[in-house]
């Protein structure tokens, strides 16, 4: 095994996953390509969503790809950072909203 789990040059080799299973890879990459095409959402908006999701998933490959991707689609630094705050708010909110569950449980077992 390599000394590190993540290597930047591996991002460029993403397509190699087709070597061991071409049909599924093709389906995935075709789908992927379609998803990011301009639709009711612009390419820039889609790149920003991808950027936010990348941070929520903390995937270094995706962060690399969609930081550049967002720039390419014309996003500003401000838009990119706001997108991250959306991810952070949802992550934080997802933890905190379970506070209600905690409170329910505590009430249930308390006198």
């Amino acid at each position, binding site marked *: 095994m390599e000394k590190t789990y993540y290597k930047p040059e591996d991002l460029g080799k993403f397509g190699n996953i087709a070597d061991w299973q071409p049909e599924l890879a093709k389906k995935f990459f075709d789908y992927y390509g379609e998803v990011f095409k301009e639709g009711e959402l612009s390419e820039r908006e889609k790149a920003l969503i991808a950027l936010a999701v990348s941070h929520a998933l903390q995937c270094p490959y995706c962060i690399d790809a969609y930081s550049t991707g967002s720039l*390419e689609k014309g996003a*500003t630094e401000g838009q990119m950072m706001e997108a991250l705050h959306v991810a952070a708010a949802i992550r934080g909110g997802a933890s905190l909203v379970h506070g209600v569950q905690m409170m329910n449980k505590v009430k249930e077992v308390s006198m």
Partner: protein
Amino acid sequence: MTSLKRQEHRLANSLIQLEVLEAPRQNGEQFALFQDKLEAAGLYPLRPTGVEILQINVGKMCNQTCKHCHVDAGPDRKEIMARETMQHCLDALDAAGKQIHTVDLTGGAPEMNPHFRWFVEELSLRGKKVMVRCNLTIILANPKYHDLPEFFRQHGVEVVSSLPHFSARRTDAQRGEGVFEKSIKALQMLNAVGYGKHGSGLDLHLVYNPAGAFLPGSQASLEKEFKQKLLKDFGVEFNNLYVITNLPISRFLDYLLQSGNYESYMEKLVNAFNPVAAAGVMCRNTLSVGWDGALYDCDFNQMLDMKLEKTAPEHISDFQLNSIDQRAIRLNQHCYGCTAGAGSSCGGATT
């Protein structure tokens, strides 16, 4: 900021730029040769489809010193085209007749050349479509330039202007502090005389090129974004957005090397090679003239001092359309910038 030339920077030497472009990567591997890619696409040797546009660089003098400038232009550059050389250009156009229908004036800031207005008048008298690559800030740089929008209007000049982004921060990072604000003012002045307005017949195109080591996104989507933003925030209107890829030469090459982005940028360009874009590269229908009258395949080859192949004339005073149309175009690794993705030319994407 000063030009590379003034700094006596090693990259001011075009031979060193070519050396960098041809050198192997740090791991010893070589980037695929552009020539080989063209060969595989059935395009080598690359021949013109016939010159239709004469792009004339009337000088390297500029009021700005943009970080990415492939001309290495700036206030400290004194090379500008003499009137005599402009006359040679007019003679060449007369000899070429209708085949060359468009003249694209570039620089530097072409308006700083003292013979600029005379030249534009002569060109428009000849019925040529005249395009000026106007950097916008020049209009505000000095009172003597304030009437440029009116001058352009009178001669039906098509104005092509750089605006790397609709955010001040991104524009200023590339073109200098305060450039965005001045550019917007200049655009409003152009709009005021009718440029970019629907039905006026006065075309105002904007040029977008990435402010950094990344490729441009799709021209259609960016144009939509630019139009919405500029209209909403500043009331500015324009016709088309030309999306241009930065070529790895001169100051942009310096930036790539300094920032450690050179290899990954080249890799991006090479991987994005598009044979369809390759068939539409601008050197096939455009001929480039340097400030001293020397002839080149394009403005980029001009900056790399790669003159036309020996079978074609060296100088505009020896202009000869036949041999120019039959020459082989000179190529090197920087050409990957023209063939990446949707392709790139002075008129934007080529596919």
